[in-house]
């Protein structure tokens, strides 16, 4: 028995890769679905904060990511834009990452077209500017000098969506979808704490633990962490909406759960094998 367990500990890593691949492919192929319970938590806080905004409010949405983190952050972007536009909240978007502009544009155009919203009236994409934290400080005093024209080169002064928007303090909320730096920490530091503007966000699962302290201190109003956060938000946005388009995060969560189960089984087997080997060595001594 001990020999079998020891062999289990030295299992070929390629077998583990195959098991992991199957754990992801099979649930996606059979469109397996698992319930996503939504209770108290940072995702619900984020949803409630957006839900509490009155119609006509203005939100700054910053797309601070690139294609390498699309599977986690793009579903969040789509769900957030859908929620904001459904509530008739005006979106002014920008990016602290160069590639975030086009990814944000994809989400904005797709949702805007499906809901019949109008560019420059209901939303605008200002584009990317370099500078990170320095840029945010400048936005705090004068947005239109930093972004005199939008992503397509149109003057922002002529846009109805920018009426009355001159500085960060004119927004009811700032939301950053962040894959790293600059992203959520820069917005919390340079906008939230400095100008006292509510900051919400979404981030990759890797960076989620470092933002939890901001939630407990109230420096952030809510947080969507990784694919789970995206699936939570998709689920909440779809509740009560007939024929709502399906997102990609919710179907992915079933595969995520099965993959986690496989990893846990391998960790348990590895530990059993290790303990069996240790016990055998003790007997030999």
């Amino acid at each position: 028995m001990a020999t079998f367990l020891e062999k289990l500990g030295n299992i070929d890593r390629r077998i583990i890769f195959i098991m992991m691949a199957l754990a992801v492919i099979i649930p996606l192929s059979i469109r397996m679905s698992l319930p996503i319970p939504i209770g108290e938590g940072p995702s619900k806080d984020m949803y409630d904060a957006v839900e509490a905004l009155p119609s006509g409010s203005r939100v700054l949405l910053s797309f601070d990511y690139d294609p390498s983190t699309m599977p986690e952050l793009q579903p969040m972007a789509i769900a957030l834009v859908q929620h904001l536009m459904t509530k008739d909240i005006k979106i002014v978007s920008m990016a602290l990452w160069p590639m975030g502009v086009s990814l944000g544009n994809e989400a904005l155009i797709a949702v805007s077209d499906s809901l019949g919203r109008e560019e420059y009236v209901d939303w605008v994409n200002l584009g990317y500017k370099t500078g990170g934290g320095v840029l945010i400080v400048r936005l705090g005093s004068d947005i239109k000098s930093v972004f005199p024209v939008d992503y397509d080169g149109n003057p922002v002064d002529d846009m109805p969506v920018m009426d009355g928007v001159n500085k960060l303090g004119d927004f009811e909320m700032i939301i950053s979808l962040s894959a790293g730096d600059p992203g959520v920490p820069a917005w919390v530091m340079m906008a939230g704490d400095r100008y006292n503007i509510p900051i919400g966000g979404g981030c990759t699962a890797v960076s989620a633990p470092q933002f939890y302290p901001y939630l407990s201190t109230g420096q952030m109003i809510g947080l969507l962490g990784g694919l789970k956060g995206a699936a939570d938000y998709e689920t909440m946005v779809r509740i009560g909406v007939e024929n709502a388009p399906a997102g990609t995060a919710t179907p992915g969560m079933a595969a995520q759960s099965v993959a986690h189960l496989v990893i846990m089984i391998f960790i348990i087997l590895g530990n059993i094998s290790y303990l069996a080997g240790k016990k055998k060595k003790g007997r030999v001594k």
Partner: protein
Amino acid sequence: MNWTVLGIWLGALLSLSLYSFLYRDNPFYKFAEHLFVGMSAGYWVIYTIKNVLIPNWWDNLVPAEGGMQPIWLIPGFLGLFMILRVVPKLSGLSRMSLSLIVGTGAGLSMTAMLQTNALAQVNGTIIALGQGGGWFDWVSNIIIVTGVVCGLVYFFFSKAHTGIVGRTANVGITILMVAFGASFGYTVMARISLLIGQTQFMLFEWLPTMGIHL
């Protein structure tokens, strides 16, 4: 030719080439890796010129309405100095640009960093144990306070970690291990999410181009 289908096939074949490394190193993986590095470098150069340099610098230096704004030559020269790092005799000039970046960054973020990541966090730790009301809040608040105190004791090196100090430090390292475990769990979730994203692309975008609909 349908360019979308071609793009999907290129994406799928390159993904498979990269995943083939999981079996062993091979020419397909090497090809995909080198192609990615070369393409990324080329793409970024063009993207940066078109979306950063032209709108943020050139359009300000030479505005569309005419005339030249000489003040914008200063950031132009500072940017040029950074590139001069590749010329050994002139590489010293890049220090001027770097010192400006470091000085501005440090000055701007020093107080903000202290306020956001130190003072606000300390303030968040000074809580009444009964704050929140329920028993869960009680337990959470006790864990926060105990965790912070014991964690700080673990990083206090001016006294040997023996006796009560040692036991407190042990609690601190245990709490740190729990935090690292939670962080690792999130990291696993992130990596699996990327695999899921790529698998969704293969199953629902690539396979349909061959008439296979799942």
